[in-house]
């Protein structure tokens, strides 16, 4: 059904229309010398290569196979980040003060930012919208087990749940437990198992 919205005046053809409009905008800006043909790729490249959950996944996978690295990661996350070949500025841009907490059979950790949406961008990427949702922020502190269950994580009563409140001073994230049956996997294969949700403590790692 064609849209009545005045911005989408081409109705059913709006895909073609939008694609043509963006192309026209880009070519106009290039003609005017405001951007170059490479500008957009450079900006997108930043999101693709510099910061994202693939960084956190790499760190966790290394910690799973190298216990000494794991100790260093838990003791000083930012220093441990520097041991890996991360792009310059890895510990900048909201990642200056990252701390990681380890899930064990006895303790399950979950992160929240009760004030706003402080988040370790360099290791987890962009926060999901619910992370900033007032309901999630309030409820996860009050009834973490219930919230975790809604996310699909059911914990035994014997497991202690710890909620870590991120702030401008410390941005927390979680070192999940390595799942059973992954003994033969390489570090890269292990990294592929990790999701941002697992590193926020609202999911477990699935094989």
């Amino acid at each position, binding site marked *: *059904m064609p*849209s*009545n*919205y005045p*911005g*989408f005046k081409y109705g059913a053809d*709006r*895909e073609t229309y*939008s*694609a*043509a*409009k*963006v*192309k*026209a*905008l*880009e*070519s*106009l*800006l290039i003609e*005017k010398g*405001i*951007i170059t043909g490479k*500008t*957009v*790729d450079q*900006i*997108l490249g*930043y*999101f*693709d290569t*510099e*910061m*994202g*959950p693939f960084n956190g996944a790499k760190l966790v996978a290394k910690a799973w196979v190298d216990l000494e690295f794991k100790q260093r990661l838990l003791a000083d996350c930012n220093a441990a980040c520097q041991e890996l070949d991360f792009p310059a*500025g890895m510990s*900048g*841009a*909201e990642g200056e003060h990252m701390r990681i907490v380890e899930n064990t059979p006895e303790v399950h950790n979950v992160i929240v930012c009760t004030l706003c*949406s402080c*988040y370790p*961008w360099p290791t*987890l*990427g*962009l*926060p*999901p*919208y619910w*992370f*900033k*949702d007032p309901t999630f922020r309030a409820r996860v502190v009050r009834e973490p087990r219930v919230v975790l269950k809604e996310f699909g994580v059911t914990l035994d009563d014997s497991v202690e749940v710890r909620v870590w409140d991120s702030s401008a001073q410390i941005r927390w994230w979680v070192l999940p437990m390595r799942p059973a049956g992954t003994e033969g996997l390489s570090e890269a294969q292990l990294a592929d198992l990790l*999701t*941002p949700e697992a590193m926020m403590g609202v999911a477990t790692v699935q094989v």
Partner: protein
Amino acid sequence: MFTQFEHFAATSLMGSPEESPPRQDGHLHFDRDWEKMAFGVAIALSKQGHFEWEAFRQTLIETINEWETTHSLDDPEWDYYHCWLTALEKVAVESGVIAAGELEAQMTQLLDCKSEPCS
């Protein structure tokens, strides 16, 4: 302190599922090439100081609200990047980056070139 404008810009939009760019596994997710270009152009123009990021953000929110008040919320026509593009065009014209009508003229030229070769 925001040391990377790109990240500041993207995360300032993370308030709600509606305003926030679609993501997949913590990455920005684009379905079509033109979405990428519209996203990148908006960030580039603001980064260069042609308009404040907040001005773009507010225009995007207004555009989304306008759409929502004229459509039912489960209308399958809803499309985040169409709203993004509408907001981008508004802000680009308001800030004087492009003149009103200039974009239409450029489009006509580009579309005409598709049907017959232009020099």
